[in-house]
């Protein structure tokens, strides 16, 4: 187990910089998930931690010791690959024992350690098979077993679940979490799937374009995203971003969304939002906070009247799509209301669930005193 620190870590391919001097602290035993769209640099970062990619600059520290010059074999890590990367010519047992063989562990000890890992992953009866005789889910388990046997300081996972179907993915997610709860080994996990990130992580690291956008626990990222990017990336369905104009009059601040829709800004955010008066802004509201629900009528909820375009029933709720100014947005409604396309409805959102985004910087404007959940900005 180890604490992992990235200090001004940088990667260039020729003149092209793909990781721009990032800093990150991962505590001992923490489950950190690097998440972002493809090409954001999350896999490159992981590969630098593994030693499979050489860092152009900066430092990688395990428990305060610089490892960036060490060979992968000397870093005491174990990695699970997206492709599983099982050795096709070896049995499952030999695959799992490979790292022990490299270490020169005695064969009785090898047997014992492989046995423990196999039992933990419920693959004891597969030990004599070759990888090609296994299903995708079984291969995934073997790949994890191979990593577990090594008892490393840090586990590295590179999109390990992306080749599995949805049901299996959900199941493996739970198992990975269970293993982490049991072993408490530091994990760095790369995924592009924000649901995986939310469900697994102690700490989510949102990456974009070779930078770290934000680091925080899942709920912090959900409640207090620092940027439009994080706000849009975390949460499903995606947050709605309404282009608007912030207007000031004697009663306070309003956002004008066009088509006669005006949203009143809450009084307590007046100080934070005031500098944007008279300017173009974006208003962000998550679909799950924008409800077709009459119960929200009081308590200072804002309202907008829209025409429903598409209705997608999900069982307990429905996704309602509506169009404003040529862009589609999503809200959530009660299935019992039986909305039909073309219906005119009044959507409501609680004032606290509204975000104001400065379109120039892409930053979410958070009121200074609204510190109900702490936010950690990336350095």
């Amino acid at each position, binding site marked *: 187990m180890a604490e992992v620190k990235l200090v001004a870590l940088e990667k260039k391919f020729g003149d092209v910089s793909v990781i721009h001097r990032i800093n990150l602290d991962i505590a001992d035993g923490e489950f950190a998930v690097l998440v972002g769209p493809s090409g954001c640099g999350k896999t490159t970062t992981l590969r630098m931690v*593994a*030693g*499979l990619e050489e860092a152009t600059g900066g430092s990688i520290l395990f428990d305060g010791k610089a490892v960036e010059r060490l*060979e*992968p*074999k000397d870093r005491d*890590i*174990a*990695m699970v*690959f997206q*492709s*599983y*990367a*099982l*050795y*096709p*010519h070896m049995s499952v047992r030999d695959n799992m024992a*490979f*790292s022990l063989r*490299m*270490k020169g562990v005695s064969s009785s000890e090898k047997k014992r350690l492989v046995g423990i890992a196999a039992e933990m992953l419920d693959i004891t009866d597969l030990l004599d098979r070759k*990888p*090609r005789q296994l299903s995708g889910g079984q291969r995934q388990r073997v790949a994890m077993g*191979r990593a577990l046997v*090594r008892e490393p300081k840090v586990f*590295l996972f590179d999109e390990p679940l992306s080749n599995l179907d949805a049901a299996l993915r959900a199941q493996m997610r739970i198992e990975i979490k269970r293993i982490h709860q049991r072993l408490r080994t530091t994990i760095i996990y790369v995924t592009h799937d924000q649901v995986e990130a939310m469900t697994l992580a102690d700490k989510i690291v949102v990456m974009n374009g070779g930078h770290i956008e934000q680091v925080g626990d899942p709920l912090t990222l959900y409640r207090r995203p620092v940027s439009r990017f994080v706000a849009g990336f975390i949460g499903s369905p995606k947050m709605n971003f309404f282009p608007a104009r912030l207007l000031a009059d004697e009663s306070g601040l309003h956002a004008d969304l066009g088509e006669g829709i005006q949203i009143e800004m809450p009084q307590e955010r007046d100080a934070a939002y005031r500098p944007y008066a008279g300017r173009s802004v974006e208003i962000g509201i998550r679909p799950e906070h924008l409800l077709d629900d009459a119960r929200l009528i009081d308590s200072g909820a804002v309202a907008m009247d829209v025409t429903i375009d598409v209705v997608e029933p999900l069982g307990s709720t429905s996704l309602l799509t509506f169009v404003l100014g040529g862009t589609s947005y999503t809200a959530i409604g009660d299935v019992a209301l039986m909305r039909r396309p073309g219906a005119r409805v009044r959507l409501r959102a609680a004032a606290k669930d509204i975000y104001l985004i400065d379109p120039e910087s892409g930053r979410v404007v958070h009121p200074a005193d609204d510190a109900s959940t702490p936010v950690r900005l990336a350095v």
Partner: protein
Amino acid sequence: MTRRSGLQLLFLGLAVAVLLAFAAFPLLWMGLTALKPSTEIFTWPPRLLPEAPTLSNIERLFAQTHFVTYFKNSVIVSSAAVILTLLLAVPGAYGLTRYRFFGREMIAATVLFTYMFAPIMIIIPFYIVMRTFGLANTHIALVLAYCAFSLPFALWMLRTFFQSIPIDLEEAAMTDGASRFRAVIHVVIPMALPGIIATGILTFILAWNDYIFARILISSDNLKTLPVGIADLYNASVIDWGMIMASGLLVIIPVVIVFSYVQKFLVAGWGSGGVKG
């Protein structure tokens, strides 16, 4: 597979039979002639099967010529050529596959280009080089020549093999605590084995069958390889066809044995690459 009609099958069978006869009949004739006594070889009209089969041709071959020496020389030279070629080609092809360096693709292409020179074009300069180093009329010169001629295609073929091995596997081995060298030994080479064997066999055949290099580079009789040794049987005042056919038969037997044994590797080698994870 598409279904074929009976007529199509018939034509296909006929075509195969013609091709087979064309390729195999001379071999058959050679084998049968080797078992005929000298008097029968020149009878007219010629007969396919020997009337009084005999091993006297083979006996004479062993008694009157240096056939055993030639055979031994061929085995030594061909095996050494295979070992040297693989020792150079495996790391070379690995380097051309896995390391990023300036001019890599150009080197790979140029290597293949050298394969397009006919041996006869470089044999004289090659001989001069060998003589300068005092290696003319040695087996070392032959081994070097065969190695030089096999290396381009060996590099090219093995490179294709290494390219088909997912790099993830090597990286997995390295994160599992193996050095690059051990990752190659434990993961890459076992997976490339069909290709390595196929390459070895092609090199062996090239060396085993070579006439030109052995003719020019070797002058001592006790260093000659089979193709040269057998050709010299034609130079006798009386050409002993029975003995020549017998030597031909004995030359192809080991090749046939090796081929039938390693056929499956060759198919894997020439086919897919055979390394699906």
